[in-house]
């Protein structure tokens, strides 16, 4: 019996979509054929490695490469002065001059100042891998150490050392809706809490890697593990060449989760090729990846929440501070997500929110699955539990009473336009779990927790998102799809094959998808923001439907049957009187001078740019809602937490491939459990203490229970066939659900992540004192 259920409404007559199909890319991966970014070698290539800062904050006094260039096998050692445009400016949108750090920049290779442990200083190019290590030791760097700003509180203190000259405050967002002071004054109950989330690494299995070369047309080609082939534009700016002279290819990526959204190896590979005219390869070590690639923001949240005695929410007073680390990256946008999602999937009539992201000398932070929208779940769901306990209302019931519905507005003013099955997800996990189990022996306590969330899918509406796809038939009736999506493991490519097959009737094994090439596939945008199925799925659906309709019109005229009566299925165009193979239908079109290929673009919703004061209404296309339930067993002597049962339910609109949907949910839960209970990049006054995977523990198979999914299908999402995005949403509720379960077991609530055995023991002590 399958542990997973899919409850479908109105699936219609779908034939390929909505079925759990083994992905075509999985076959090649299983056979060992897939060539990841590090699996390519080119004749004559050089190997590349970065020399990185050993300290978190300092002035660079000496960068001496004279010994390093003499190491046998070393081709060149490049410094910032060798980079045509070494200063990269980061756009910090929506901010006014009140925020001083409006202009944020970073250097490709630091020339005079380092701001975090691991910041790149020099680029070694060598004939062999072994020579890289020798040269790295031979590069002499001397620093004048400068004061370290170790956390946002230090950064914002009066007279704090400046991480950047413009100031330590990078960006702020505010929300003022209704009158939260009046709401608090008239409330029957007000609960208050402070919650902290930690610095987290993406820890995908594939370290950052790529190979680049100069092609026969003078174009620098970068084949790298990336979520964003559009970085060709950024690379072009760095080199000072036309954007058309840089091409980025994303092969299948060994995990992204936001960590391959910013550039990693790309500028260095391009620089090497630009400089030498030879192919170059760069593969980061795991240690480098853990040391220096941008991570998930630690966030501190304070919530004051007002409610009526019946549990009705009256308002939140929220204060959020996130640690941007040493450079801006996407911190301003991540914080925006925190602000917009801060009220949760509930009606919140009054809200005052103040938020800021702050420079420190910690590792930079940027995109990671959930992107600011997930940290705040730990805040607002902890508050919902506090209210439930204070008012003696069932945790599921208080959530259902406040659940947002179609037509309601989020505190930012965005109206919810699609159905919300939040209550249904709460019922689904509760029914599935049944009664709470009893402890298996004395000395153990069992607890149950639930948590709900909402998470946007699709990019911010002012980013004016679009995705293009090209679809064409071959003369034998087989089908080609060209689309610039990077596939980072979520089934991004195979879902598009299913959609094309569904609409055009070509069997799955006769559809070939060419993806992830900024020069040869139509640009479809980033594999980020839970947008690929929504945007690129709609682009493929649009192109396929246009092509089908055009071909149907030709076949209709040719065969004398109404176009509407023609069905593209099983490799045929089937009509009431006469059926043709797809190859014959293609021949008809060619004979009649009609196209057998088409290019279509799908445009996401447009919106005006968001101001620092968030009141502009629509921010995102739409949201995905869900609820998780966890049963835990806590060892009262050791503080060890074991998860007995984990059930996750989300309304995915329509599951294009139910196997991929369940994979996204289970994988997100595993990652969420890691953040809740185990993981932390430990930094001591700017020094990153994580030296390898042996010091950064992510969940193993033995740490997790089976993860049970109840997938709901409202059919109301904005993606193809009514799908909603599901890549990021299921990571949101994990930490809150587990904290809630631990509180239920031991009697006090953990408020800081990760919830280690020590922190559980502290909760047990707190409960004993109370």
């Amino acid at each position, binding site marked *: 019996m*399958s542990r997973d259920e899919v409850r479908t409404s109105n699936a219609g007559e779908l034939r390929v979509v909505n079925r*759990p199909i*083994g992905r075509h*890319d*999985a*076959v090649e*991966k*299983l*056979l*060992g*054929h*897939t*060539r*990841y970014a590090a*699996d390519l070698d080119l004749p004559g290539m050089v190997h590349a490695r970065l020399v990185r800062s050993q300290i978190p904050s300092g002035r660079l006094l000496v960068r001496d490469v004279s010994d390093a260039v003499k*190491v*046998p*096998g070393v081709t060149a050692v490049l410094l910032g002065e060798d980079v045509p445009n070494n200063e990269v400016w980061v756009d910090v949108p929506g901010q006014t001059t009140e925020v001083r750090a409006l202009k944020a920049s970073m250097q490709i290779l630091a020339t005079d100042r380092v701001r975090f442990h691991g910041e790149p200083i020099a680029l070694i190019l060598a004939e062999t891998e*072994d*020579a890289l*290590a*020798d040269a790295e*030791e031979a590069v002499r760097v001397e620093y004048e150490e400068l004061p370290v700003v170790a956390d946002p509180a230090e950064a914002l203190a009066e007279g704090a050392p400046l991480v950047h000259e413009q100031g330590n405050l990078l960006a702020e967002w505010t929300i003022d809706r209704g009158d939260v002071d009046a709401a608090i004054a008239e409330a029957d109950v007000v609960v208050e809490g402070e919650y902290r989330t930690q610095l987290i690494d*993406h*820890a*995908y*299995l*594939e*370290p950052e890697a790529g190979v680049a070369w100069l092609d026969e047309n003078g174009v620098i080609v970068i084949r790298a593990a990336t979520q964003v082939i559009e970085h060709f534009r950024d690379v072009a700016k760095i080199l000072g060449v036309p954007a058309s002279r840089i091409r980025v290819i994303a092969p*299948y*990526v*060994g*995990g992204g989760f936001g960590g391959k959204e910013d550039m990693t190896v790309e500028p260095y590979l391009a620089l090497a090729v630009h400089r030498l005219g030879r192919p170059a390869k760069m593969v980061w*070590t*795991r*240690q480098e990846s853990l040391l220096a690639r941008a991570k998930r923001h630690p966030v501190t949240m304070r919530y004051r929440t007002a409610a009526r005695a019946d549990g009705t929410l009256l308002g939140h007073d929220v204060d959020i501070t996130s640690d941007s680390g040493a450079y801006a990256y996407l911190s301003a946008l991540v914080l925006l997500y925190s602000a917009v999602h801060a009220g949760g999937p509930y009606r919140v009539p009054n809200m005052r929110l103040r938020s800021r992201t702050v420079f420190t000398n910690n590792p930079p932070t940027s995109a990671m699955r959930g992107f600011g929208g997930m940290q705040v779940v730990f805040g607002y769901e902890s508050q919902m539990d506090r209210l439930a306990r204070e008012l003696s209302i069932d945790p599921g019931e208080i959530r259902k009473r406040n659940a947002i519905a179609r037509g309601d507005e989020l505190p930012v003013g965005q109206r919810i336009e699609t159905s919300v099955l939040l209550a249904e997800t709460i019922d689904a996990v509760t029914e599935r779990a049944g009664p709470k189990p009893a402890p298996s022996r004395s000395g153990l306590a069992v607890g149950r927790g639930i948590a709900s969330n909402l998470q946007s899918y699709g990019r911010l509406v002012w980013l004016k998102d679009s995705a293009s796809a090209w679809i064409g038939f071959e003369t034998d009736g087989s089908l080609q799809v060209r689309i610039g999506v990077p596939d*980072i*493991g*979520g*089934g991004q490519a195979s879902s598009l094959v299913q959609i094309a097959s569904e609409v055009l009737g070509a069997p799955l094994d006769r559809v070939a998808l060419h993806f992830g090439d900024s020069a040869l596939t139509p640009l479809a945008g980033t594999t980020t923001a839970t947008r690929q199925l929504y945007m690129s799925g709609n682009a493929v659906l649009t192109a396929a439907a246009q092509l089908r309709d055009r071909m149907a019109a030709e076949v209709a005229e040719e065969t004398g049957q109404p176009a509407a009566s023609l069905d593209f299925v099983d490799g045929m165009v089937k009509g009431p009187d006469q059926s043709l193979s797809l190859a014959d239908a293609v021949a008809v079109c060619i004979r009649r001078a009609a196209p057998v290929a088409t290019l279509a673009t799908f445009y996401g919703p447009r919106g005006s740019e968001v101001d620092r004061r968030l009141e502009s209404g629509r921010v995102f296309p739409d949201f995905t809602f869900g609820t998780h339930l966890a049963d835990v067993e806590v060892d009262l002597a050791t503080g060890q937490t074991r998860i007995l049962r984990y059930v996750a339910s989300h309304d995915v609109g329509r599951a294009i491939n139910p*196997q*991929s949907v*369940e*994979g996204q949910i*289970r*994988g*997100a*839960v*595993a*990652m969420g459990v890691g953040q809740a209970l185990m993981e932390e990049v430990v930094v001591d006054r700017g020094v990153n203490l994580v030296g*390898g*995977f*042996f010091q950064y523990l*992510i969940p*193993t*198979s*033995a740490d*997790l229970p*089976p*993860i049970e999914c109840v997938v709901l299908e409202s059919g109301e999402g904005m993606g193809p066939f009514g799908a909603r995005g599901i890549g990021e949403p299921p990571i949101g509720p994990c930490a809150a659900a587990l904290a809630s379960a631990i509180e239920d077991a031991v009697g006090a609530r953990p408020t800081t992540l990760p919830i280690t055995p020590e922190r559980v023991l502290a909760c047990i002590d707190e409960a004993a004192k109370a």
Partner: protein
Amino acid sequence: MTAHASADVSVTLTVNGRDVTRTRPAHVSLLRWLREAGFVDARLGCGEGVCGACTVLVDGAAVGSCLVLAVQVDGSEVRTAVGLSEDDGSVGALQRAFLHHGAVQCGFCTSGMLMAATELVERGEPLDRERVTAALEGNLCRCTGYDGIVEAILAVSGSGAPPA
């Protein structure tokens, strides 16, 4: 200076049934030796024996190939994921079970996971969820949550639900 250089050594391994001889510096790991010989389905995930992406079978035993020098296993029989397919190039039984149970997402852990699973299944002992998860503890996956992998191994060992 070439502090990281070492003397060249000739090593012969039988990889997926084929004898391969290469002369490489003595400090070259089995993983690097295999990858340089074209067996890139063994992946480098951490280089410190924690993640298991480089797991191969050496004389039938699952080994983290990043922690072993090629010279240490000279003369051994080595199997990698590429060697698991059928003679006609199609997926073998374990690979098919992985496919049907959604055990593959990004795929970077898959080769190593398959080899750890192969060792486990070939032992022929009765398996249950606890035994499988314990055996896979040295193989990290960040995408799947492991459920599909565990289910696939149970299914192919005859201990689980039939393939979906």
